[in-house]
């Protein structure tokens, strides 16, 4: 039971989409500076990734790798169309503000690359919950990053002014996103290695590209 739980939670904690694998980091770095942006991007990422991976799981496994990658990208580009239409209804300003990062969510590595190496090796019954946790992994990082950046950059929480007298405007810019994400990534690894050590698991902090 514990093992099953660990596998499920892997995408959220053990192998976080953003902090561990550094996938889909561009939207987090550039657009993850307000909670309003974060919520719109979370909706789009979750919807596009979930439906694209599920539909993509019906693609025959026998096809050559390149053909499968192209088909996955086409599926996500089609899924993107209704997702964007709905987003325009609920987040009209954010869709304009986020700009090119909205369509880019459709070619994220979780759909194009990781689905083939990770999800499609599982049975569909275990793939769906695992996929949900990988998506949640992105969502949580997006929320935390946006919360910190919005608070320290604009002195607001979801647009509501709070009492903050020293604001760091640079943190809202892409370089601020790079630095904050780097720091979060290091802290995440530290926490993960402490948890693993306490629970007697093997495996260190990992190195670049797993090398």
């Amino acid at each position, binding site marked *: 039971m514990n093992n099953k739980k660990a596998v499920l939670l892997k995408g959220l904690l053990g192998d976080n989409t953003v902090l561990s694998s*550094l996938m889909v980091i561009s939207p987090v770095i550039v657009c993850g500076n307000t909670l309003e942006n974060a919520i719109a991007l979370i909706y789009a990422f979750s919807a596009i990734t979930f439906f694209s991976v599920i539909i993509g799981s019906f693609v025959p496994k026998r096809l050559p790798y390149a053909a499968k990658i192209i088909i996955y990208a086409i599926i996500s*580009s089609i899924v993107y169309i209704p997702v964007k239409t709905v987003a325009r209804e609920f987040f009209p300003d954010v869709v304009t503000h986020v700009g090119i990062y909205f369509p880019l969510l459709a070619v994220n590595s979780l759909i194009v690359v990781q689905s083939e190496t990770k999800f499609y090796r599982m049975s569909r019954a275990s793939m769906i919950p695992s996929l949900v946790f990988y998506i949640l992994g992105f969502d949580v990082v997006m929320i935390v990053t946006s919360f910190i950046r919005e608070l320290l950059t604009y002195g607001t929480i979801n647009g509501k002014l709070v009492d903050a007298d020293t604001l760091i405007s640079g943190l809202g810019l892409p370089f601020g996103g790079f630095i904050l994400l780097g720091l979060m990534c290091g802290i995440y690894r530290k926490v993960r290695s402490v948890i693993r050590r306490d629970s007697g698991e093997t495996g260190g*902090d990992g190195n670049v590209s797993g090398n």
Partner: protein
Amino acid sequence: MFLVTELVALLATNLILTQALGTSTLFIAAGNKKNLLWTAITITVFTSVGSGAAYIINWLLPDTFADLTLLFYTLMVGAIYVILLTALYFAGSDSFETTRKYVHVSAFNCAVMGTLFTITDRADAYPQFNTFFNFVFSGAEAGTGFIITAFMLTAAFRKLNSAKVPASFRGFPAMLVYLGLISMAVYALR
């Protein structure tokens, strides 16, 4: 003087340092120096050829079907992907096993798609920019920016992966902070 001004402009429009496009791909390729450089070169091929093709798609696609842009770009990048793989196979089937991995990594990612969308956005904002030559040139410029960033990362590769770096920050996190600081300098100079 001209070179320095051009270099500043190239850095100021660098898609990784200013828009974080293709950062994941850069890190995936950062496993070793050779991978990094070849991936950067392959991405330049994709951005240059893709931008030319994007110009044609934009020209043919009516505004009312703007939401289909991504789908058409995907089909076009898919076509370039297949053509490049085929060309590499016939160019040298012995080295195909090695070279094809660069094509796999470079085809569908934020660096390529981001470049196409950025150039299209710029052309929408400045109509004088909307020419085939400008699209191809901007695609090549974006790819060159990617190569420059790859060089920047390669220069620090040994230090960022050194045993002296705290284990939790070694590799990816140190790379992110490193690129962040360089990006901060680029922003200050813009």
